[in-house]
Each structure stands twice: as C-alpha cells, then as structure tokens.
C-alpha cells in the first residue's frame, strides 16, 4: 500500500463499537477459560497422583454362539491412566479351575469406565466366576 492510498484512497472506516452481544460472548469466553484454568490448577495442586485403582464389575451374562459372554465394566478411581489393562475371568467348580478367559483393555483413564466381554465355552452360571484386573502398565 502506498502512502497516498493510506491518506486519501479509501474513506476512514467509521469507528465501530463492540456490540453488547460481543461483550456478553467475550465475557462468557473469559469466564469459561478462567473456570478451565481454575479446574486444571486445582487438579494439578490438590489431587494427588495416586496411581490407577481398578475395579471390575460383571454387568451381565448371555449366551453367544457356542458359548457364553460375560460382560464386564472396568472403572479407574485412581489418579492416573492405566494402559494395556488385563481383565481375567476364572471359572471354577468345586475348587478346581474349569476355564480361564482374559481380555486386554487399551487404556482406562482416571475417573473413567470401559466395557467389554469375556468369552467362555462353559456356562459361567454353573460355577464360581471371578473377574478381576490382573495387570496394567503405566503410559
């Protein structure tokens, strides 16, 4: 842009005022960001990283194909993500192990749940079924 353009070329745009709507929206943005920052800092400062705390609950059993699928839900109530979580279900009858099935959950972040199913060829209802997390690694 040359000097003359600046001075005479186009009329000086009349100074617009920021509209009320923009102030409201802008204020909302500021508020949201402050909340976000506050929450993050609170979590960083107050919530201790306790490591993952995993618990598994069986949510249902149903027949599937030639066998049974045991649906589970795994929750992490700790303060850190667990990755490569092994979920193992052991079906035992009269104290002897009949069948074992396991699944790997990619990752379970803190305060989150993941669901999946273990597959059995024996009827899980016919014995004592125990489903538990059997291992994980840290990211």
């Amino acid at each position, binding site marked *: 842009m040359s000097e003359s353009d*600046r001075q005479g070329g186009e009329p000086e*745009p*009349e*100074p*617009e*005022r*920021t*509209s*009320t*709507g*923009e*102030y409201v*929206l*802008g*204020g*909302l*943005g*500021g508020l*949201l*960001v402050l909340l*976000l*920052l506050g*929450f*993050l*800092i609170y*979590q*960083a400062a107050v*919530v201790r990283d306790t490591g993952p705390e995993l618990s598994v609950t069986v949510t249902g059993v149903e027949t599937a194909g030639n066998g049974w699928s045991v649906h589970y839900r795994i929750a992490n109530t700790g303060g850190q*993500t667990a*990755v490569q979580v092994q979920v193992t279900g052991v079906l035992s009858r009269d104290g002897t192990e009949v069948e074992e099935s396991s699944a790997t959950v990619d*990752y379970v*972040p*803190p*305060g*989150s*749940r*993941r669901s999946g199913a273990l597959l059995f060829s024996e009827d899980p209802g016919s014995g004592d079924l125990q489903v538990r997390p059997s291992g994980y690694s840290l*990211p």
Partner: protein
Amino acid sequence: MSATTDTEHLATGVGRAVGGALLFALPLFMTMEVWRLGHTVERYRLALLVLATVVLVIGLAHYFGAGPGGVSRAGYLADAGVALVVALLTASVVLVVLAVIDPVQDRQSALSVVVIEILPAAIGASYARSQLGAGSRRPQAPRYGHEVFLMAAGAVVFAANIAPTEEVVLLAAKLGERNAAVLVVLSLVLMHGFVYWVGFGGQEEATGFLRSFRNLTVVGYVAAFAVSAFLLWTFGRFDGVGLPVVVGQTVVLALPASVGAAAARLIL
C-alpha cells in the same frame, strides 16, 4: 446501530470465527496422537498451555485489529473472549461428533484433549475475526515487538499441528548432528527467502541484508525454536531423554515452525 444489524454482525463474526477455527485446527482434531496425549499430559502442563493460548489470543486481538472496532481495551478483550469461546465450542462439538471424546464416560481426558485442541482453534478463530470487514485494522507501520509476536503466533499454528505426532520423535532419532546443523541453516534460508526474495503478496523490502537477517530472520527463528521446545515439553517429549534428543526434536519441529513464522509476516 440497530438491534438487527448488531445481531447480524455478531452472527457473522461468530460464523467466521468457527470457520477460522476449523480451518486451522481440523488437522489436529483428526490426529490420533492428540487423543492419546489427553490421557498422559499432566494437569499443570495443560494449565500452562491454556495460559499460553489466552496470552496469544489476547495479543492477536490487541495487535492485529480484532473484530469490529477492537481498539479499546474492553473491545479487544471481548474479542479474545469470543475467539476462545468459539474455539472451545467448535473443538468440543467436532470431537464429540467424531466420537473422539466421550464427555460422559471420560470427563478427564475429554477435557485434556479439548484443551490441547483449542490452541490452534483459538488462533484460527482470532485470525478469521481479524479479517472482519471495516473493523480489521492493521497497524500501518508494525512495530518491531508486534512483528516478533506475530512470528511467534505463526510458528505456533504450524508447530501445534505437528508437535503431537510421533514423526517428530522418529525424525529426530534418525537425524545426525550434521543433518541437524544443515536443517537449522535450511530453516533460516527458507524464512528469509519467504519474506524477502520470492515475491509473495506481502513481500517486504529488505533494509540491508545483514540487518534484516539479524533483526527479523534470526530472531524469528529463535521464537520458532522456543515455541517448538515449549510445545514438545508440554506433550512430554522431553521426559527422560538426553539433551541431544531434546535439541534434535526441537530442530526438527522448528522447520515447520519457522516456515509458519515467515508466512505469518506475509499473511497477517
């Protein structure tokens, strides 16, 4: 100004901001590493990233003409707020629809992913709003501080899209000392060439090669390098690695960052 035109104006501004946010941040919305980073990045690093985003967006709104009449302090702050809220909402909506985040089952990492994604989205929103008609004002003779800030912002846009990827780690691992040194020189030459030699739209007159090289190109590269290092640190790429790897990764990321820095001087 009547209520109708006010509303229309607001709608146009917000619409452009959404467009800008998508344009700048969609590649990062669709980058797998970011989804994973959401689970691993510590909260204090995310807080710092949000802080950096806010400072950057306020600076952009302040120096580069905000939306309508963002001349007063309240005006440009409101503008930065609009850009941030639009970035937050755009990122949240797109990521939920893409099923990247699940705010019900997975609050914590949903929040982390959105926080990482609002950096480019907010810059895009802010940039798009600054193009909004008569309100956009470009300082006639940009001051030196503004130019350096602008280069840093451009570096952030490019670097943010590449910093989370595994490729940076891989490239740095394969890069020898000699190639790293060549890469630094190449970045500097590209930066200088972009702005002064190849005749893009906003080409600038060089006021003496050495002076412009030292004052803008080298300083711009340092800004790009610093931005790259900050982003890599935020994403945990420096955890448990030695200094040579740290420098290698930063040099690799500084290549796109410096091109972004140079481009920002032409575009904005």
